[in-house]
Structures are given as C-alpha cells and as structure tokens.
C-alpha cells in the first residue's frame, strides 16, 4: 500500500468539506461538511501512524472522534438556538458582525 493513496483520498474529502463549509447555507449541512474535514484529518493521522509503525496516530484519531462528538453536540445546539431566535437556519441571515 502506498501512503499517498490514503493521503490523496483524504485531500479529496478535505476539499469537499471546505467547499461545503463555504458554500452551504444550511447550518446543519455546514456541520456535516465539518465532519468531512475531521474524517479527512483522521485518515491522515491513522495513515501516518501506520507509516511509522506506531499506534499514536490511532490514539489521536480516537481523541478526534470524541472531540467531534462534542463539537456536533454543541454545534447543533447553536443551530437550534439560531433557529429558535430567527426561525431560520440560513447562515446568510446571521450577519450581526456586518461592519
């Protein structure tokens, strides 16, 4: 197996995630795109761990999974809150930071 196979796949997932985060209007979909990015990172971690013959990569990936769970929990709570306040989860309407 070549290292680059996994890394390139992860690059594809990462770029898709970036596109989703930037282009999606729906808050839940943005969160899903973030999950794509996190999974891409996880593949990288595990692949490099295997490359070096260490399990540290897997441990880090486990931590990432745990943190992703927390992130989704809080993220969805925020989306719910936005929805409750604005009756919409259209992120374009959440523009209070407009300068």
């Amino acid at each position, binding site marked *: 197996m070549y290292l680059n196979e996994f890394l390139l796949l992860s690059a594809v997932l990462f770029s898709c995630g970036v596109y989703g985060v*930037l282009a999606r209007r729906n808050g839940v979909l943005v969160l899903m795109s973030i999950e794509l990015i996190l999974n891409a990172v996880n593949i990288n971690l595990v692949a490099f761990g295997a490359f070096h013959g260490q399990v540290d990569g897997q441990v880090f990936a486990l931590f990432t999974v745990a943190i992703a769970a927390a992130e989704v929990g809080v993220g969805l709570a925020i989306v719910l809150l936005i929805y409750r306040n604005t009756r919409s989860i259209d992120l374009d309407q959440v*523009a209070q930071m*407009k300068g």
Partner: protein
Amino acid sequence: MLNIGLLATEAGGAAAEGFEAGWLTRHVWLIPLLPVVSFVVTLFFGKRFKGGGAWFGVSMMGLALLLSTALGVEWMGRGHVGIEEGQPPAVAATYRGTASGDQEHQVQQVIEEAERTGEPKASIPGHGEEGEEHALPAGRFSLPAAESGGEGPAGEPHAVEVRPYHEAEAGWFHIGPIEVGFGFHIDGFAVIMLFTVSFISFLVHLFSTEYLRDDRRRTHYFASLGLFTAGMLLMVSSSTSLQLLLGWEIMGLCSFLLIGHWWEESKNSDAALKAFFTTRTGDVGLLVGLSILFFGAGQTFNIAKINQQAITGEIPRSWLVAAAVALFIACIGKSAQFPLHTWLPDAMAGPTPASALIHAATMVVAGVYMVGRFYPVFFSAFRIANNALGFNIIALIGGITIIIAGLLAFVQQDIKKVLAYSTVSQLGYMVMGLGVGAWTGAIFHLFTHAFFKALLFMGAGSISHACWHSFDMRDFGGLRKHMPKTFVTFMIGTVALMGLPPLAGFWSKDEILLGAWTNGYRGTFFLVGCVGAALTCAYMTRVVYKTFWGEYKGPQTPDAIEHASHAAHGHHDAHDDAVENQAPALVGASAYQEGAKASADPGVKAAAHGTVQSERGPHDDEASHTADDHGDSAHAGAPLGGYPHESPWPITVPLIVLAVMSVVAGIINAPFFGLQFTHFSAIEPIVAAGVPEPSFSGVVAVISTLGALAGLGLAVAWWRGMRFGLDGLTRRNGLAGAGYRLLEQKYYLDALYERVIVRGIKGPMASAAYWFNQNVLDGVAHGVSATARRAATFTYDVVDQEVVDGTVNSVGAGATGLGRGFKHMASGKVQQYVAYLIGGAAAGALVIFAITFNRS
C-alpha cells in the same frame, strides 16, 4: 505528547568553566515568578483579601526585591570561587578600553584564537599578550575596582573586569530541527535591571496601596502591576529573543490596562489605545528584526550566540544593518523616541504610580534595554566606534528627542506632562549614549534615571493626592510649607534630574557626554547633550517654582469646588479645630497637621510634630509614622481635611527611599569610588565588541555642569522676571529657601521703591528705575526665555501637532479610505470570512511551495 522537556543545560558561556554559579544565580527564575504569583493570586483571590490583595502584591514584590538584592550581592562575589580553588581565572576578560581600530582587531584575533584552540575566550588582554591575565593574583579579582579605578589622568584607558555570564536553558519546544529554549541569562546587566525593576516596582506597589486606596478596580490594578513587573523581569533575564519578545508584549498589554485603568473617561481609554497602537507600530520592527537575526545567526534565538556572531562577523553586515534598523524602530516605539513619542505624554491618563512604573523601570526603558542587550549588532551595523559619517541613526534620533522633548516640557501646565516630556528627553539621552558608543553611560543613566524619575512621579502623585487629584500646576503653589517631606524629596529628584553634582543624574549624564566627547562626536552630540542639560534645568526650575513656591492657588477643600459652604461645618473628628483655623495660612496648616497627627496617634506627643516648618530629618518622622496605627480612621479623613497636607507614610516612605537612592546611585560609578558600576555591569559581548570605555574627564564634567547651570540661571532669572509683575504675591510669602531669599529680597526692594518712592515723589526717577528694571534687567532674561518659549510653542504646534500628528492622521485617513474600499468584504457573513481565510492560507502556501518546489 506530554513531552515537557526539562533538560536544563548549563551553557555557562565561554568563560564559566570552574565557576560555580551561586544558588540564586541558578534559581533566578524565582524572581520573575513572584510577580506572576502576585498576578494570579490577586486576580483570582484578591477580592477576598482585606484591601483587595494590595498587600499581597506588596509582599510578593518585597520578596522579589530581597531576592534580586541578594542576587546582586551574590553576583558581586562571583569570580572568587574559581580563584580560591586554584582554577585559572578564566573569568576575567580584562579589557583596556580605547576606541582604536587595531584594538578591535586584537580583540577579534583573541576571539578567533580562542575558538581555534578550543580554549574559553576568557582573557582578552588589552595589548595582545595572551595569558598575561592568567597570572594575576587573586586580589585582582576580589578588589577589581580598587586597583583599576581610573584615578589616572583623564582619557587614559582603564581595565574593566567582566564576570562570566550564567545561562540556564530548558527545552521549551522544537520546530523540526530548531530547538527553542526557555531560559535565563544572568550577567551584570541583567542583575542590575532585575534589581532596578524590583526596587521601583516594590515602591510603586507600596505607594499605590495609599494612592489607590478607594479605587473601584483596585484588585485589577494590582494584578496588572504584578503582571507588568513580571513581564519586565522576564524580559531582562531572558536568554532567547523569543522570550524577550514575550516579556515585551506582556508589558505592552499591561501598559494598555494600566493607562486605561480609569476607562470610564473616554480620554483615558483613548490614551490607552494610543499607547498600545503606537508601541505596536514599533513592535513590527521588533518582529522583523528578530526574524532577520534568527535567520542571520544560523537559526538560533539565543541572544548570546547572536551577539557573538555579530561580533565575529558571521552575520553579513547588510543583514546586521537591516536588523539593527528594524530593532531600532521597535526601540523608537517603546522608548518613545522622536517620531513616536506622542503616546507617552498621553499615557499620563493612567494612575500616577503606574506612570512612575512605566517611566522609571519598565516599558519605556525596555527599548533601551533591548538596544543595550543586542548592542554588538548595532555596534557592528552602524560602526559606532569609528564612523565616517559623524553620526548614526541612533544618536541622531536620540539627539533630536532630547531637544524636542526638552522644549515641549516648557509649555505644559500639567505637572505629569512636564515629567513625561522630561522622561522622553532623558530616554533620548540614553539612546544617544548608545548611539555614540557610551554603553555603560547609557545603562548607568537608565539605572539612575529610574530612581529620580520614579521619585519625581511619585512626588507629583503625592502633590496631587494632597490637592484633590489635580495635576494642573496652576492649582499648586507654596506647597513646600504644607508638604515638607514631599518638597525635600522632590527637590532632590529635581536636582538629580538636572544633572548637578554630586547627585545621581550628574554622574550618568556625564558618562554619556564623555562618550560623545571621546568617540568623535564633540561638535555634534556632545553639544546637543549640553543644550539638553540646560533645557532640563530650565523646565524643572519652572515646575518647582510653580509647585512649591508662591501661594497655594487651589481649592482649600474638595468641597470648595462643588459647594463652598461645606468646609465650615468641618468633620466629626479631631480635624474640626484645624479646619476652622483656616484664616492665617501658615498657622492653619501647621495646626492642621498637628491636629491630624494628634488624632492619628494620641500617644505621640504633639510637640514632636509641632515644628512642621522646620526641616525635619526624614527618619524620625518615618519612625513615628510607622509607629502609628494606620488603620483607616486616622488618614481616611485626612484628604478631606482642608489644606494641602502631607501624605501618609505609604506615600512618603517610597519618596524618602528614592531620594536617598537618587543621592547615592550616582556615586557608585564616580571615579573616586572606583567605577564600581562599570565593573559590575560590564558584560562579555560589549567588551568583546570593543565598545570603548573612556575614563572620567574633568573637562567634560565642567562643561556639562556649566551648561546645566546656565539653564538653571536663565530659568531662575525668567521666573524672577515674571514675579516682578506679581510682586504682591511673593511679598506676602515671607519664608523662602536660602538661595531664593535674596531674589525675594530684591522684590521687596523693588516694591519698596515703587510704593515709597513712586508714591512719595511721583517723579521721573521712579519711572526710570522701574523702566530700567523692567526693560533692561528683566529684558535680557525675559527675551531669552520668551524666545525659548516661542521655540517650544513652535515645536509643539508645528512639529508635534502638524508634522507628527499630521502624518499619523494621514496614515489613519489612508487606512479609512482603504477600509471603505474593503467595506463590502466585511459583510458579516462568517462563511465569507472563512473563505478569505482559507483562500489566503492556500495562496500563501502556494507561494512557499512555488519557491521551494525546485529545490526539493
């Protein structure tokens, strides 16, 4: 990975073999740690302490002061160990200072030689006879100064002893192959800075306990003070440039917090922002300069290594020049030099003790410290010792700052602003000293200036504390009668600042001027320094006149400002009698003070305090004060008492201590005292770089003193002239200082002439006498001073307001225009921001990738 590298490496410098560093030298991290503890504890638990955690901060700083004093003592003993154990005295890099080029060459050779042979480059004999110093008797090291103290004729070189530095570094983190350490570099310079900073900071803490007694955010104030001090201590003891940057930025943050302490007034928060942004402008220079040095010195952050490579020429000179210019921009920002000096006077919006700390020991001297620390870089980059141009940017900026700030000080009505401009001017001295190659002089001036400037600021704080927090000198006057301790200490600080012998400022200013004299800047920067000394004398005379002489012009009670009738009712304590006794000013004041004292401490006999007017020794007063119970009852009422009154002991004790230091601090580097400071502070890179160390010169001392006296004389004359029109005020003022009494007597004479002769004869003779007095005698003095005043006003109006502020404003306008252009980018849509962020990062990565692609 929890890889906390604690792999301490003792890189004891090139010359530390066989020299056991003392316990404190090895544990010097304790000193910056104490204010950090103070900061953390005060911030989180301060509100639970009685007094808002102030006394915790005071005690921590006291401990830090003790430690740094002990460190200084330990440092003085350094060098004995190895000799007594029979080790070769590798410590003594003896250097005979002349500025000649071949001297540098010899030093250079010795270094190269030492590196080739793998020997420690310990001994740098002045005349190329290697090994000569190895045979020196031990007594040479135990009494270095006594032998080498330049008692010889002026201009003759003398030897400087260097104690080897101690450096301990622990691994902080590493980026690829680059190890970044976190460590402490202890040498004479660092020890002096540690002592000065903790000394001033301790007194500022003590002062603040009273000055900010009833402040709403007292806890936060003390927490900021602690962090501020920690930042400075960390900076001066750091071994890496990264750590220096850390301390530097901590100070930037804390100065923002402290200047904007009373942020409810928009003026104050504006000043805080101005200080922050102006110094940030310079900080860009620091980042750039440190980066250049990092890459130039083979990817190391270690300051000692950078300096060594700057000396040996391993860093190309073009890199050195770029780094030096960038670092100097940082110094301009932080140390308030000419184009960026405008923030410092505005920074007076902060509490006065914080101003004292900022001006004396931290913040503004950080820039000077940084230049002094990286001095070999500047020395090599600008060829300071033998410069063909006759000037360099450092000396030029310093010189301009001396004059500009000195003139500005004349037109200020706010006493703190005068002192602020004075600080700017004195910093200009230090920078100019560094620019003309007087390293020791600049550092020594930093040292002495810390004491007397802190003294002056705290004195101003004490005055303001007495005058209901006014800083306007038009509200003051005649305070020497009401605040004898403040008056005496303020006068000592003033004379020290003026640079009159034998107080502190004289010795340090003299060394800078001496450097300018001997290093070939006789016609330029030496003169600038002398003119600056004259200006200093003149504006400080003005301050002293307006504050301590004449009649008190401010409100008698705080309530007089709002509703005048309240004062008559007095207060429900022992002050009542005193308050009602207002009518004759002097009696009232003394009676008030007696009353206050008696109420404060019934046990102390009133007679002991009865002679308020007489010049009491500070110590018996201090003793009786400390014996007092300083609970709240005695002095809480005091600020409301009526007259301007002497401040309580947490304010006067720091003043007295600083006054003593202002007197003695200069002596330690006096030639008859063996130039102790020079030997103490000498550090290896400075000696190795060949920075000249000229001996005391009587000619220079006389010229600079004459310059100062000229300024003083002119100012006194001017104030005499101005009094003439207002002779009624001065006439009533019977008690005057011994020197001033004569002048006042003359006024009596003039008034007598006017009253008796003009009234009696009403003839032309009186008019003639009056005319003569008015136009001829005073005209000379007045003309000179009016010109100076016009020049100052011009400088303020045109240079400061138009040119400097104009530039700043136009930059701001440009930024606004740019901002208008980019306005649509700030749509408030987070996703758009993220797109810019990632796109920018990708573009940056693409650039780096494109550059490095071919190489790999």
